[in-house]
């Protein structure tokens, strides 16, 4: 149980940062690659993660289960993949409406990256809930999960910027990320449930983010 949740949190972190890096690639043809484009991307990702943490924490209060956890991965995959289809027309439309590339890139980043990132942000607090048995251990569990998910983010950033962009097209990388999300969602669905005895009896309600 514990290693599986950690693996999932790791993959969640990996995908968030890989996706964020691709964001720069996706926006560049319409809004350039100036510092403001990265400003827009980072703003939207931080904002989305903030919302995702909040929602993930709320969701974890009522009947937390690994199957619902698996659902988060599946839904994020469902919202991530269509990027391949709608990124171009959405950016085209925004480019025509908004002349200033700063607000253009911010709006485009919001439309393209916000929903999948909010859902990906729900992973961390939810995994804390699945692993915490009692209040005393909650800090330790949360710390360990931040460790794995942030390590995942670091490796996602590195692998994407050093290798993925050299080997694959942007759309191929998004497909890979979607497949990872679906596979680990399946892992959570099939392998975790039987072992979730702890969360049912726990009265602990740890705060996920600090």
């Amino acid at each position, binding site marked *: 149980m514990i290693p599986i949740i950690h693996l999932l949190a790791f993959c969640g972190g990996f995908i968030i940062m890989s996706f964020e890096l691709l964001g720069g690639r996706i926006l*560049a*043809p*319409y*809004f350039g*690659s100036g*510092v403001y484009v990265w400003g827009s991307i980072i703003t939207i990702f931080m904002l989305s993660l903030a919302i995702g943490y909040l929602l993930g924490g709320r969701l974890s209060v009522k009947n937390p289960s690994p199957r619902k956890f698996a659902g988060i991965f599946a839904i994020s995959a469902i919202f991530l993949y269509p990027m391949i289809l709608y990124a171009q027309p959405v950016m085209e439309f925004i480019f*025509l409406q908004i002349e200033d590339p700063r607000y253009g890139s911010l709006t485009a980043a919001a439309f393209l990256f916000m929903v999948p990132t909010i859902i990906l942000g729900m992973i961390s607090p939810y995994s804390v809930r699945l692993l915490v048995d009692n209040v005393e251990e909650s800090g330790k569990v949360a710390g360990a999960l931040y460790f794995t998910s942030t390590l995942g983010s670091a490796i996602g950033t590195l692998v994407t910027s050093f290798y993925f962009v050299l080997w694959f097209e942007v759309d191929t990388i998004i497909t890979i990320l979607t497949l990872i999300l679906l596979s680990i969602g399946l892992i959570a669905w099939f392998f975790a449930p039987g072992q979730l005895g702890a969360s049912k009896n726990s009265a602990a309600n740890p705060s996920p983010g600090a």
Partner: protein
Amino acid sequence: MSLLKPSSIHIPADKRFAQPLKSFWALLTTLLVTSVAPSVLAAGKTVIHEERSLYTSILVQQQRDLLCLNFTLKRADSSQSCMDVKNPQRMVFAYTRMAMSGLLFNPNPKHIMIVGLGGGTLPVALTEIFPEAEIQTVEIDPAVIGVAKRFFNFTETANNTIIQQDARVFAKRAALQKQQFDLIILDAFNGDYIPEHLMTQEFLTEVQSLLTPDGVLVANTFASSDLYAHESNTYKEVFGNFINLKGRDSGNRVVIVPQGALNPKQRRPISKDLLLAQADALTPILSPYAVPIKRLAKDILKTINAPTDWDESKRPLTDQYSPANLLRSQ
């Protein structure tokens, strides 16, 4: 325990930090001095101006009569742009002289677009030669614009303007406004960092749509590393045939596409006589700039049936696949 006796911590700490602190102050003083007063470097170069912009490090230095602009501190010998202060018209760099050979195919451009300002060598020369032409130079870095104006005699006029914008955004907007240019010069690929979204098939297609039927595209590009092959195949993909002009004694390569807006089959074949006649006509105009236009015309003629000298199996760069900076180091 130590909390009760703060002095027992402070004494060793002071000793420990004394040395680094001293060198820190020394470094800070050096930095202050170099940024305030021009300093003379070992090779006889005087640093005139140093600035860190959002995109690069800008260094203006003078060695004898040459005033040069560098975009990096670590390879301070590779200048982006140089001006001979005694003879500011003389084009110091081979690639700027090579870029002027685009005029052989459109000797009287009315609308000119230049991507990448640098020291402003090309827009300054072109506005002198064609005072009536409307020249728009796209430069993303406001610090570069400031330096070109302050140190390299660049003056904006009604006909010679700078647009501070990402060239990709500019090209897209210009296409929407149906702007057309007789001469487009791409010169944004000099520094340590290559803007990858300005190297792709999609960008070149957008640029192509901005050319008049007789418009010429001139691009200063890479002549070495894996990038040479990838980039060549990208140009081939968009324009079909192009003139692959390599510097005789420099590592530069300039791509020239006459009538780049047209399908390769619709383009006029390059006639030797016409080209040499054009070179003759341009000689008096270009000689103050030290552009050896006759020699360049001969070099161009030599490239016409030359076999390709790059690996044609390398993928063209696209918005989906453009790791230009990584390919350059391969």
